């Protein structure tokens, strides 16, 4: 039961993007197309899960003073693995995500989970937590990618959906569009969960 | 010769509405039946009563005094019997211990009231003592005890006395009529003040919308080499003392400092006239000129009213209300106090009773600030009223203080000018109160 709870919380209640505002850089930078968002999400998921597990395993052997450097090295190692792997098997996507793959290293989400969760909890919970967080991150990025791709290019995952006469709204695949889309989405999510909680507290 | 007109930075040009009363001569109000004389009509320590219920008193008799330095005695304005001492509202909005005297209609004058002799034979000390005993406070609105003002610490060198005849408040014409009808009293008072603080330079500042007052004063001072006049541009708040000093002498009184720090004493022309009375007749401050005006008054007038007369009676003598009254204000529309009852008595600081019709009484709905900065432009102190008011609204006292809230003189120019009708000075007042309360509790 607890396993399930640790997993589920990352999907919505503690969603990294919409609730905790972590990992904002890739969230904004690579979501100009749905596929990029998805790929970035999955890469992050991979790194998050691997490093959380490793850190949960080795946490007791690491002295406090070198905790952060060690964690970061672990994370960076997995990021490099992911990068090399993608370069070998998905070169196009690797090229688009570019600089933001190495930046997974410093994604606050990963170090944040390592510090706050993995370093205090048993391996199995750390795994579930990482999975939940990663999946939450992935769907958020994919959603953002879909919205921006539809508006900015008229397609979803590269498939035309808006018809030939559609004039693309270029701003949505440019930096300002990223900020604006995420801002509005965040507002919508807040409005939603606000209603929920206030209803709940009435009873 | 064309006069140079003096002025300062900032300020506003409200509709002056002085035409209602500016050419109406002073009239003596009917003596009241019952007077309510608050024991505190000034800034400083309240008086203790020295009469009790049932005592007989005469006009000019001292009925309250205090040991404190910053305080002045009060006197009976009628002859009659003390009925009671009760908590009673005053026009400043607070409740104060008040001596209630029922007049016996005999108008007997107390024997202490007698001329003090030739001013040339009086010493500075004696003049100041006379002023204190006469219960004279500033008549310009702040009612600060005048004898205190005239006893600056020795290290402050005073070189100039300025008489404030600006009367920049809209509607009010009491100083104006005083200067037109009794310029000699004003000048006499000025000379007494000059003697008291031992200087030989006196300036009377008058706004240029009172040409007749300027003319009459000029006539009197023509052969007084030590006294000059200064014609001021008509602008609110020209009469605020720091603005006045700046306009006339170019000296700027630093924030938090007093006029005496730049070697100047400022007194209202009414104060000077009261000083003249106290020396020439020995009469303490028991009556004052009150401008009764506004679109809610049938017959706007300038009345000489006994201290303690309820507003109600004064209003009745001016023909009562025309239409439904909305607001009754003690003082002018810019700085005066709105009253919730017309039972309140005229006190030493009551320069006017302004009645506004119901239709004009409510303020307009507040809109969002559009940051037009008109409030900034008009603030005579150079504050950012909008910022301070915002901080006040958000209960951010420290920030407000950092924006110099405490130096606001509450002139109301900012609220007046704001096109969004925001209650700026009202909010600033609030935050000032809170800052001071916090300071005190420390």
């Amino acid at each position: 039961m607890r396993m399930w709870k640790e997993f589920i919380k990352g999907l919505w209640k503690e969603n990294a993007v919409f609730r905790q505002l972590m990992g904002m850089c890739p969230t904004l930078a690579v979501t100009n197309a749905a596929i990029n968002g998805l790929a970035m999400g999955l890469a992050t998921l991979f790194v998050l899960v691997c490093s959380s597990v490793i850190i949960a395993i080795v946490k007791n052997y690491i002295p406090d003073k070198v905790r952060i450097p060690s964690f970061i090295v672990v994370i960076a190692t997995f990021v490099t693995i992911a990068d090399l792997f993608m370069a070998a098997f998905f070169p196009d996507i690797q090229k688009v995500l570019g600089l933001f793959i190495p930046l997974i290293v410093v994604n606050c989400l990963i170090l944040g989970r390592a510090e706050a969760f993995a370093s205090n909890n048993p391996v199995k919970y750390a795994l579930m937590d990482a999975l939940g967080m990663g999946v939450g991150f992935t769907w958020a990025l994919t959603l953002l990618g879909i919205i921006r791709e539809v508006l900015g290019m008229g397609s979803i995952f590269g498939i035309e959906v808006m018809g030939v006469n559609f004039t693309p709204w270029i701003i949505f695949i440019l930096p300002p569009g990223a900020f604006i889309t995420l801002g509005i989405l965040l507002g919508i999510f807040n409005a939603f969960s606000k209603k929920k909680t206030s209803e709940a507290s009435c009873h | 010769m064309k006069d140079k007109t003096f002025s300062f930075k900032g300020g506003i040009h409200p509709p002056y509405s002085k035409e209602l009363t500016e050419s109406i001569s002073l009239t003596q109000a009917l003596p009241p039946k019952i007077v309510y004389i608050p024991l505190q009509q000034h800034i400083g320590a309240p008086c203790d009563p020295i009469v009790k219920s049932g005592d007989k008193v005469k006009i000019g008799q001292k009925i309250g005094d205090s040991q404190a330095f910053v305080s002045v005695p009060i006197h009976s304005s009628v002859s009659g019997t003390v009925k009671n001492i009760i908590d009673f509202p005053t026009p400043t909005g607070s409740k104060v211990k008040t001596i209630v005297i029922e007049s016996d209609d005999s108008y007997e004058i107390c024997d202490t009231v007698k001329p003090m002799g030739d001013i040339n034979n009086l010493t500075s000390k004696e003049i100041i003592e006379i002023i204190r005993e006469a219960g004279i406070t500033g008549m310009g609105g702040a009612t600060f005890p005048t004898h205190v003002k005239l006893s600056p610490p020795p290290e402050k060198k005073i070189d100039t006395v300025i008489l404030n005849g600006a009367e920049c408040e809209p509607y009010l014409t009491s100083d104006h009529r005083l200067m037109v009808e009794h310029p000699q009293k004003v000048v006499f008072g000025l000379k007494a003040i000059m003697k008291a603080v031992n200087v030989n330079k006196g300036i009377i500042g008058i706004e240029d919308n009172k040409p007749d007052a300027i003319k009459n004063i000029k006539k009197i001072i023509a052969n007084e080499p030590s006294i000059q006049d200064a014609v001021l541009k008509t602008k609110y708040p020209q009469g605020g003392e720091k603005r006045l000093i700046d306009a006339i002498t170019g000296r700027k009184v630093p924030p938090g400092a007093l006029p005496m720090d730049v070697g100047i004493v400022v007194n209202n022309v009414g104060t000077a006239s009261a000083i003249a009375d106290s020396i020439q007749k020995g009469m303490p401050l028991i009556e004052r000129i009150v401008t009764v005006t506004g679109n809610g008054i049938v017959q706007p007038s300038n009345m000489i009213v006994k201290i303690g007369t309820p507003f109600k009676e004064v209003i009745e003598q001016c023909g009562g209300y025309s239409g439904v009254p909305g607001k009754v204000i003690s003082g002018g529309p810019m700085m005066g106090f709105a009253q919730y009852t017309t039972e309140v008595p005229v006190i030493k600081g009551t320069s006017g009773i302004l009645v506004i019709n119901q239709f004009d009484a409510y303020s307009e709905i507040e809109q969002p600030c559009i940051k037009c900065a008109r409030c900034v432009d008009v603030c005579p102190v150079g504050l950012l009223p909008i910022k301070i008011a915002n901080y006040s609204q958000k209960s951010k006292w420290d920030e407000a203080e950092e924006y110099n809230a405490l130096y606001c003189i509450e002139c109301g120019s900012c609220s007046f000018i704001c096109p969004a009708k925001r209650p700026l000075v009202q909010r600033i007042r609030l935050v000032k109160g809170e800052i001071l309360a916090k300071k005190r509790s420390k």
Partner: protein
Amino acid sequence: MIELILLFVGTALVNNFVLVRFLGICPFLGVSKKVEVSAGMGAATTFVMTLSAIAAWFIQNYLLDPFGLSRFLQYVSFILVISSLVQLVEIVLKKVSPSLYDALGIFLPLITTNCAILGLALYIPIKDYNLIESSIFGLGAGVGFTLSLVIMAGIREELEFADVPEPLEGAGITLLIAGVLSMVFLGFSGLIAM
């Protein structure tokens, strides 16, 4: 000289790290509530950025390139060096200048996990800068970061008095403002091709 100035301006404005390159968004959202605080954060970041740029240059040119390790040890070595450096600076600062530590030091731990720093380091080999260019690049990036942080903080302080819709309060409105600012920074594009 002119090139260096252009490089500086270009990094600070035209390719502003936060608003155009999306680096360091987390602190941009989190530490932009008060002008003083964000100025402190900006100063600390600028310092670390310049330092990291130099460190990255040395690692790249004296370790990774000579031994052909660049492709797979770059990330690990950069981040290890940066995080250790930051921690070192923090420890030293605390002792040597407690007042400076109070002003800037409290931000240092935040900075390690900030994309802007690692992103900056990774740009050094990509751009093939020499040592001086690298440090100017770091400085410019830091100044640009500070600039956007401080502008945002100024705006957010102003918004304290605004009736912002509740769901947008905080991060939402900050992102929307960032969107507008980012539109404005696009205006600088084409200014200095980088």
